[in-house]
């Protein structure tokens, strides 16, 4: 097996010139040539005597595999010391949304008496999602850089960056609370705290429910009844088929997927604190993300991790199949569905209408960034959104798409699916109140 340590050009230069000078000196009787050639030949002998033969092992690791957006992780690469290894250099680059320190990612270290030579860069994660750091390139040198070794494989480290949820509060009740416990008042009477009525005592009523003032006044036993407390299931459906707009850290501009992720995180955080069950489905993204609806403190972390894995679709056949399978998946009856979409893909809207027709309360949250929705959209943003290179043509195409989008949103509203723009706290209140009123209203049943 050949050694992974290769002689460098510098060694070749020293050998060629040194040997040539000593030869010329001995044949030409020129002592000055020997004086110049002697150090070069000494260097070659020295390098050959100290030549490393063993292969250094490389271990690459991140300080954490999961972090929050804006967190800094340490990327450390350890190279085991082998005899003859003197210096180690490495290139540890970040990706577009991970800023490394040093920014160029070039690091170097001298092999000392320790068992390993450590190199490290700090990487600040500027955006949620799966950040890929690398590929790492590592090399080592012997004395005089006469022999060099490079790591044959190019390793990549991934860190899942969890988004920071936005701010969201809602005072409106959810339309179909069907769970056993929670903070929403049920439409049915049961064990709870909110007074429903005072009625005559019936067999089976608990004695501690007897309302003594009314019983004494009327001369017959009366009991108090209360409304049951119930929880609801909130299903967040994130449309990741397209990501429109550009994230810009300097101006604070965000893409449609950024807005959707922030909104989904905020809604999940709010409803989990009110005791509801929250689930997540990411539609059409590069990876299938399904978080089952459960409650509890840890569920927010699960939802945020799922949101962090959301990636815009690459348009592969596998993703198309996965999207169709996701759209066929049933959602439990009574679940409140919040679809977060930029409304430029037809499939998620059709899915929302189908869910509304099957009896779910559905709200569509429009996550298209405001700068793309209006005429002030920049040429670059419009070209990026439409995929058309000519700015004039791209503007025309985008205008038509916006008109189409407006029409589809209107048809959604007619089908009973309200479409609202994301405005943070209180965004969903008006539609939730309307949905709750509709669900409590008497219905005509055909017999």
């Amino acid at each position, binding site marked *: 097996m050949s050694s992974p340590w290769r002689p460098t050009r510098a060694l070749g230069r020293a050998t060629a010139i040194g040997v040539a000078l000593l030869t010329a000196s001995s044949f030409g009787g020129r002592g000055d040539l020997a004086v*110049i050639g002697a150090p070069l030949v000494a260097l070659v002998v020295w390098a050959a005597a100290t030549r490393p033969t063993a292969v250094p092992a490389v271990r690459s690791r991140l300080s954490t595999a999961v972090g929050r957006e804006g967190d800094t992780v340490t990327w450390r690469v350890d190279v085991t010391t082998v005899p003859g290894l003197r210096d180690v250099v490495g290139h540890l680059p970040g990706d577009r949304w991970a800023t490394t320190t040093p920014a160029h990612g070039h690091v*170097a270290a001298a092999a000392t008496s320790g068992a390993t030579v450590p190199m490290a860069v700090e990487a600040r994660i500027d955006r949620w999602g799966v950040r890929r750091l690398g590929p790492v390139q590592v090399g080592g040198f012997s*004395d005089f850089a006469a022999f060099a070794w490079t790591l044959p494989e190019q390793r990549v480290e991934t860190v899942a960056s969890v988004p920071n949820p936005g701010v969201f509060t809602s005072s409106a009740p959810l339309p179909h609370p069907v769970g056993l416990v929670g903070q929403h008042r049920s439409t049915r009477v049961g064990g709870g705290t909110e007074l429903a009525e005072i009625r005559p005592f019936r067999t089976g009523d608990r004695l501690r429910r007897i309302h003594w003032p009314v019983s004494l006044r009327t001369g017959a036993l009366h009991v108090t009844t209360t409304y049951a407390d119930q929880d609801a299931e909130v299903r967040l459906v994130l449309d990741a088929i397209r990501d429109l707009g550009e994230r810009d850290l300097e101006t604070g501009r965000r893409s449609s997927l950024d807005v959707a992720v922030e909104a989904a995180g905020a809604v999940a955080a709010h409803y989990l604190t009110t005791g509801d069950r929250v689930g997540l489905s990411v539609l059409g993204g590069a990876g299938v993300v399904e978080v089952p609806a459960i409650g509890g403190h840890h569920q927010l972390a699960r939802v945020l991790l799922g949101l962090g894995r959301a990636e815009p679709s690459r348009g592969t056949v596998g993703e198309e199949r996965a999207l169709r399978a996701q759209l066929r998946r049933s959602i439990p009856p009574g679940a409140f569905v919040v679809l977060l979409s930029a409304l430029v893909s037809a499939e998620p809207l059709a899915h929302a209408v189908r869910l509304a027709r099957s009896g779910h309360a559905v709200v569509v949250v429009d996550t298209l960034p405001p700068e793309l929705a209006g005429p002030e959209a920049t040429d670059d943003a419009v070209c990026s959104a439409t995929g058309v290179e000519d700015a004039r043509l791209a503007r025309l195409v985008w205008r038509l798409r916006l008109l189409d989008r407006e029409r589809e949103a209107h048809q959604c509203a007619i089908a009973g699916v309200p479409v609202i723009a994301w405005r943070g706290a209180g965004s969903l209140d008006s539609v939730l109140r309307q949905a709750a009123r509709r669900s409590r209203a008497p219905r005509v049943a055909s017999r």
Partner: protein
Amino acid sequence: MIRNRTWHRAMVGTVLVADVVILLVGGAALPGFLPFALVTLAMATWWALARPAGWGAFTLVVIQVLCATAPGGAPTTLVQWALAAAAGSAVILTHLALTLLASWPARADLPRATALRWGGHAAALVWVAIGAALLGALATTTPLGWAPWIAAIGLGLIAATVWQVRVKTRRS
């Protein structure tokens, strides 16, 4: 850590100083050779510093050797041997500086331990050049009968160097 700009400038400065030494050595032997050597060295230095990992470095070292040795003959006096030692030191320092520029990432900082080791190695090789020049001076200024003794000293120096290398290798 030595900042990347600092060590980069130091290496470029080393190559330029070595060029000046070579010019002085060549000029001392033949002053009329100086303008030609200056132009040639300047062009080769520019090429070598622009691409230290390419053929420019090889060309510069060869041109330095030619500029230092072509104008004069075999050294006979102590001054000529001293100039030869200076030329030898300049050539080896140029080689080491270009090697470091070629192998080390230009943006990476240089660890102080690495700089000290390279400095120590460079000093050792400069001493080899000085030792070789001293040996040559001794050989030219002594009667022919002393030749075996001078050869023995030379062999002893080589043995001492190899021993030092082995000791340092084992220690590290």
